[in-house]
């Protein structure tokens, strides 16, 4: 048995699966041998299969419960954009003492106003309960909203909708949006190739929606042929909408979803 020379082994290991790395100059020897030497070609294929298996295994790690909420809480903006804009302005154009005083005054006023708004917002508010009929109407609004402008961003291989393994669909693109009530959300377009529309909305909301914590609640859509499942876990609302002309909502929901 002839060993793979160390240099060639390194070249094989440096070659990513599903890439055109063989065109890179350092891998020229490997590219040449992979065409003429069956054993080397086999070893390269085997290495790529191993890489794919390792990549898949590395992604298979569960995310701690509540992590998203903790991260969102930790990264909530502490300075209002208006204050930041005034501060930036003041920092870049400190032309005169009067201008500085005006800027400082504005900053103080804006900070005070922001603080007051913050205090008011932090006061405990009774969570509004939103019924299923109202939610079905909101879903219509959100669907229209996210399709109004082309702000979709392509999903990468690492993009996964934060619905755990409950939803059996892979996002192909995503976009953020804000609901009319000011809730921040992300819409994932999970439409499979050649099929009809599948959308997943993930919305951070202080309100209590009248749905189960698992995707058992089906909403009656005003639009014919649209299947809607909704579920809420703490302050995260999940809504899956499926155009059921040629497919079924149930096909996109795991039978035994993760709690």
């Amino acid at each position, binding site marked *: *048995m*002839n*060993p*793979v*020379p*160390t240099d060639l*082994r*390194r*070249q094989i*290991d*440096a070659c*990513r699966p599903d890439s055109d*790395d063989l065109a*890179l100059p*350092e891998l020229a020897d490997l590219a040449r041998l992979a065409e003429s030497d069956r*054993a080397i070609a086999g*070893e390269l294929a*085997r*290495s790529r*299969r*191993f*890489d*794919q*298996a*390792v*990549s*898949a*295994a*590395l992604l*298979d*790690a569960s*995310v*701690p419960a509540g*992590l*998203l909420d*903790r*991260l*969102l809480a*930790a*990264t*909530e*903006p*502490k*300075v209002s*954009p208006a204050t*930041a*804009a005034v501060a930036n302005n003041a920092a870049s154009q400190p032309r005169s003492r009067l201008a500085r005083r005006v800027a400082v005054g504005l900053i103080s006023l804006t900070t005070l106003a922001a603080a007051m708004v913050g205090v008011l917002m932090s006061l405990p508010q009774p969570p509004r309960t939103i019924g299923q009929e109202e939610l079905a109407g909101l879903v219509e609004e959100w669907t229209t909203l996210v399709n109004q402008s082309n702000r979709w*961003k*392509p999903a*990468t*291989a*690492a*993009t*996964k909708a*934060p619905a755990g393994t409950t939803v059996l669909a892979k996002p192909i693109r995503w976009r*953020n949006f804000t609901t009319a009530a000011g809730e*921040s959300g*992300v819409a994932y377009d999970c439409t499979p190739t050649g099929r009809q529309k599948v959308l997943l909305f*993930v919305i*951070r909301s202080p309100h209590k929606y009248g749905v189960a914590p698992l995707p058992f609640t089906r909403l009656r859509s005003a639009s014919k042929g649209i299947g809607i499942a909704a579920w809420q876990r703490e302050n995260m609302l999940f809504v899956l909408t499926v155009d059921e002309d040629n497919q079924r909502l149930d096909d996109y929901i795991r039978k035994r979803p993760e709690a």
Partner: protein
Amino acid sequence: MPGGGAAGIDLSALVVAHHAPLYRYAYRLCGCQAEAEDLTQQAFLVAQQKLHQLREAERAAGWLFAVLRSCFLKSLRKQRPASGQAFDIEVEDHAVAAPEGDDLDREQLAAALAELPDDYRLVVLMFYFEDLSYQEIAHELEIPIGTVMSRLSRAKSHLRRRLTPPDDSPSSPESSNVARPAPSTEKNANGSTKSASRAVHQTP
């Protein structure tokens, strides 16, 4: 601006969209849930401050990975003892039986990763997680291409050894021409060359 980037990118949307892959990357780098959570949070806090640097939303995932990596390297520099710590890496190669499907043992993978020195683990995770080429890894870490290729090969050799049984079958068509190579060598930072035939005592 803390809340929005140059391309009108909202941080909370980035958190919602990317927290899971970022956490997984952090978890594989640290090997510990609590540290990974801290590292993920730290990365998003840094991202919040530097959001104006993100020009295109399509590049958000790669940018966040790079931010997290930078946070990880900073934490390493704080933790790293002044004197080098010895590590053993088996680098002698062997014929590798390709795993069927993706049935790799997750615990063994975690253990094998944990055994790698930080420098090696970082390179191999940049390869697998960030899907960077060896050239891009060398550029990002500001180290020679040869060093990246060497670390990548040794790290993967270690993973193969731990995750797949040696295929000693002489009749195997794929292994017939591929078996234990000659001892490999890697030039270290000061230019000397060390043997890597059985085990390498790597000093970071």
